[in-house]
């Protein structure tokens, strides 16, 4: 077991290395650099820029150095905890991400809980009442959430929330509460504003989850031990919940790998539409303007989280299911 963990741990390193090269090249490849974007943006609003100043800034930030040198200094910095400097905000990257992390994670957690709370009962009902009217209607409802493009749904909901409930447009709380210490008013405002993003993002995820719970549960329910239990007179609810349901939760653990990075940055599109102060829009903006370190370091951070998440889920699965632990080469 320990050997397995150590082996996987070391396997992480080349993965992350390749990921870092990939990320760096993806950001560097498009022609131009941050300063060109900056200049173009200023000129679009009519402001003039001293071109010499730009050249000077370029040199200051090391853009005259060759590509590989910049890559290595970036990686070296990250290994020391220095995630670099954002050109756009002129602040260290860690400060920028850190300030938004709290709200992002809060939103993600609430969304995940929402998804589970909605998906579990529906999934179980669907599995136990297969092909019934209820099964079809719930699947239908779940799928509608998935099928509607998020950005449009968010916009429409935002408008109606304003018209019907007076919720201020966009953001995660009423503007007066920003930068204020937590209070009941602030808490209420955040809760009110969180409804739209949670519902929009959540409905997209519930459909998939319902389907998987349904499929896995159906597989389990066909097994011998369930029939035996029913035959022996176990009440239906207990029959479903005590064993089959728990068995079908295997895939959950497998999912931790992808949940972890999503907690830290996800739902970029909805966050942009609703102007939420989460990390998603920050990342998109950084990529569009080629803010090298902000985009690169953040992506790297997410990559690390994914790899760690996958490792955790693999270990958890290995602990739970010895069959996976012992999988080997084909027998010849």
């Amino acid at each position, binding site marked *: 077991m320990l050997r397995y963990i150590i082996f996987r741990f070391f*396997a992480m390193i*080349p*993965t992350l290395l*390749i*990921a870092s090269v*990939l*990320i760096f090249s*993806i*950001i560097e*490849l*498009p022609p131009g650099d941050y300063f060109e974007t900056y200049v173009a943006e200023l000129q679009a609003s009519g402001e003039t820029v001293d071109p010499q100043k730009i050249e000077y800034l370029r040199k200051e930030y090391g853009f005259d150095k060759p590509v590989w040198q910049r890559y290595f200094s970036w990686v070296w910095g990250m290994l020391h905890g220095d995630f670099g400097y954002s050109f756009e905000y002129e602040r260290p990257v860690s400060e920028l991400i850190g300030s938004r992390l709290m709200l992002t994670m809060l939103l993600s957690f609430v969304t995940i809980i929402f998804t589970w709370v909605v998906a579990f009962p529906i999934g179980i009902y669907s599995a136990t009442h297969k092909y019934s009217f209820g099964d*079809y209607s719930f699947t*239908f409802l779940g*799928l*509608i959430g*998935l*099928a*509607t*493009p*998020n*950005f*449009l749904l968010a*916009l*429409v909901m935002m*408008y109606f929330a304003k018209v019907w409930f007076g919720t201020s447009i966009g953001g995660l709380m009423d503007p007066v509460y920003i930068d204020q210490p937590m209070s009941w008013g602030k808490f209420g405002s955040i809760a009110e504003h969180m409804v739209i993003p949670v519902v929009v993002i959540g409905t997209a995820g519930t459909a998939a989850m319902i*389907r998987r719970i349904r499929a896995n549960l159906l597989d389990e329910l066909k097994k011998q031990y369930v029939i035996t239990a029913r035959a022996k007179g176990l009440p239906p609810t207990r029959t479903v919940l005590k064993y089959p349901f728990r068995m079908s939760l295997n895939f959950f653990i497998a999912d931790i*790998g*992808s949940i972890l*990075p*999503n907690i830290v*940055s*996800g739902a*970029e*599109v909805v966050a942009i*539409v609703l102007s939420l102060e989460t990390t998603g829009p920050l*990342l*998109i903006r950084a*990529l*569009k303007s080629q803010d090298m370190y902000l*985009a690169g370091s953040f*992506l790297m951070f*997410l*990559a*690390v989280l*994914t*790899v760690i998440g*996958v490792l955790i889920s693999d270990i958890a699965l290995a602990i739970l299911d010895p069959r996976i632990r012992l*999988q080997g*080469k*084909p*027998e010849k």
Partner: protein
Amino acid sequence: MNDSSLPRPGKPLGHYVSTAEFDPYSVEQLTPEQEKYFFASQRQLIWWKFKKHRVAYWSALILLFFYVVIAFAEFIAPYELTRRHQEYIYAPPQGVHFFKDGEFVGPFVYQRIRTLDMDLLKRKYAANEAKTYPIGFFCDGDEYKLWGLIPSSKHLFCVRDGGTLFLLGTDRLGRDLFSRIIYGARISLTIGLIGVAVSFILGISIGGLAGYYGGWVDNIVQRMIEVLQSIPSIPLWLALAAIMPVTWSPLLVYFGITIILGLLDWTGMARAVRSKLLSLREEDYVMAAQLMGARPSRIIARHLIPGFMSHLIASATITIPTMILGETALSFLGLGLRPPVTSWGVLLNEAQNISVVVLYPWLILPVVPVIVVILAFNFMGDGLRDAADPYQ
């Protein structure tokens, strides 16, 4: 020793053997239905099971209908794609009526009168019940070239000169939304297919190799998948779309986008193929094939894959909606298709505006075919998946 029970060689046996005609089915007579069932090929069984899943069956029919429509888009759309109507900007949908003064006269529309509200700077439209334009079929309208090759001007339905047929209203340049949705369907529905084809091919080949060989091949592939999955999809799309050369024509950009979408989705397919192969390769028939000297590619392609092809198709069908939604998301981020190319993503993006939600809500209607198509693909995929294992 002379054994009296065994006759001499060549002579008939001593026990009773009937010389009557032998009918193998005489013991167990099969009814015609049973016969059909037991002798049916795998494909037929899948088809029958699929049909039983009513919702999936109807979904498949709806999708077929959509694809037929886009094949003849130019003919079915009342107006040509770029046709603008200066006088009818932001016009709401026109209702089709059938009864005039209580009598059935066939489908017609009322004339539209436009007035300008100079206070709100809004265009107002009212129906003039005095003048009606009957809707004709197979009539002459805008000129077009079917598939860009065959010139014609016949349309499935239209109104006579001077009349307007805006079934779903017009947009800010006075273009008919219904026609644009039909033309847009062409791009949106085919992007999904091509993207899925790309991810299909990649997923099967890479996943197949990993699953079959196992060992270090498998390890490398798994690492690769891990790397790709560790980078969130939207930023990756953004980055890839930004790399696409600017000089490409819209058609090339379109293909570029389908490839991007396909490239990022093959990992799921590869994983599924790999895990299935890992279990299936232990089967006896694989060992038999190996012993007979078949090459690995032949074994994978000819023996293993067909075994779960139906599962793959089912997964692929469910991936198509992701591609369609991905295209709309890319348009939203400003990186997908852009005007003058028309797709549902472009149409929805143009509707992404508070003015539209409040004042011109009919422009949000393209979301309806999007939802219908995605639901249809999902249900059809569900049905296929259930049907894919007919021996259950």
